[in-house]
């Protein structure tokens, strides 16, 4: 057992800090992957298991915990959807995604028809163009939701509820985008 406080081994990385603090950036939606990448690499070095070597089994467990924390933080900050949810969480307005299945009908209708369109891509005369069109649609949708989220977020108290709604919608846009990208890859590969 070592008497050295753990914080000395972790270069000041604190599991209680929020992800923005961890990366030394202001709390907000504007995060560029490239801007936080250097800090990510630094953090990965800091929490590298080798640095916990002298701390025995407990140290190894701790190392895993720190590494997971750093990875989760980076992953969250880089993802438009996770970042939005996280931002709402740290500001005390966590989004409940487990319930709440009845949403804006027009939005769901649009999702439904885009997913339908995607499922018919392979039967279309030009699958490549068809899938591209859905993908572009999904991208535009995601961009619009991001802009709207920022606007609502900046409104503060009065905007949180709608911002949460916006974050929920992002999940649908992201799913659509994922599926479109996957299908596009398959089509281009074949």
């Amino acid at each position, binding site marked *: 057992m070592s008497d050295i406080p753990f914080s000395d081994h972790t270069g000041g990385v604190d599991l209680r800090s929020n992800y923005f603090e961890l990366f030394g950036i202001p709390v907000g939606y504007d995060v560029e992957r490239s801007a936080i990448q250097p800090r990510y690499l630094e953090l990965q070095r800091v929490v590298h298991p080798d640095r916990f070597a002298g701390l025995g089994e407990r140290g190894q467990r701790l190392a895993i915990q720190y590494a997971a924390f750093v990875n989760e933080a980076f992953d969250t900050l880089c993802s438009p959807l996770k970042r939005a949810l996280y931002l709402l969480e740290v500001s005390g307005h966590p*989004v409940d*995604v*487990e*319930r*709440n*299945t*009845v*949403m804006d*009908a027009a939005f*769901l*209708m649009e*999702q*439904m028809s885009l*997913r*339908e369109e995607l*499922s018919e891509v392979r039967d279309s005369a030009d699958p490549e163009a068809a899938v591209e069109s859905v993908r572009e649609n999904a991208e535009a949708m995601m961009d619009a939701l991001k802009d709207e989220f920022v606007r609502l977020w900046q409104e503060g108290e009065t905007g949180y509820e709608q911002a949460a709604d916006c974050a*929920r*919608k992002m*999940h*649908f*846009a*992201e*799913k*659509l985008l994922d599926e479109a990208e996957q299908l596009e890859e398959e089509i281009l590969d074949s």
Partner: protein
Amino acid sequence: MAYSEKVIDHYENPRNVGKMDDKDPSVGTGMVGAPACGDVMRLQIKVDETGVIEDAKFKTYGCGSAIASSSLATEWMKGRTLDEAAEIRNTQIAEELALPPVKIHCSVLAEDAIKAAIDDYRKKNDSAA
């Protein structure tokens, strides 16, 4: 993820996939989405003059459990009255399909779709009456 046999059966041979005319006054349409995963489901019922569901159709873009849940829901709804159909709970669906806890939200989606379809039908027919 190991799916139960019943899930696989409904997934491979989904019952009642399709679409009805949502303008038809005897049709109720329920549209729901799961913000936990981004999946969407449409469930429709056709109700006869006596208030019995004579037909049900669904289309689900989602995981196997969601497809199985909605397929089973349409089977269960046919021949029931609106009030009886409104009694269907996600827990019954989850139990019948032996869904693991992480897949509960998929059956919640089906329950909410049932309710939404019934609501839509009632709304349409109240204002028409």
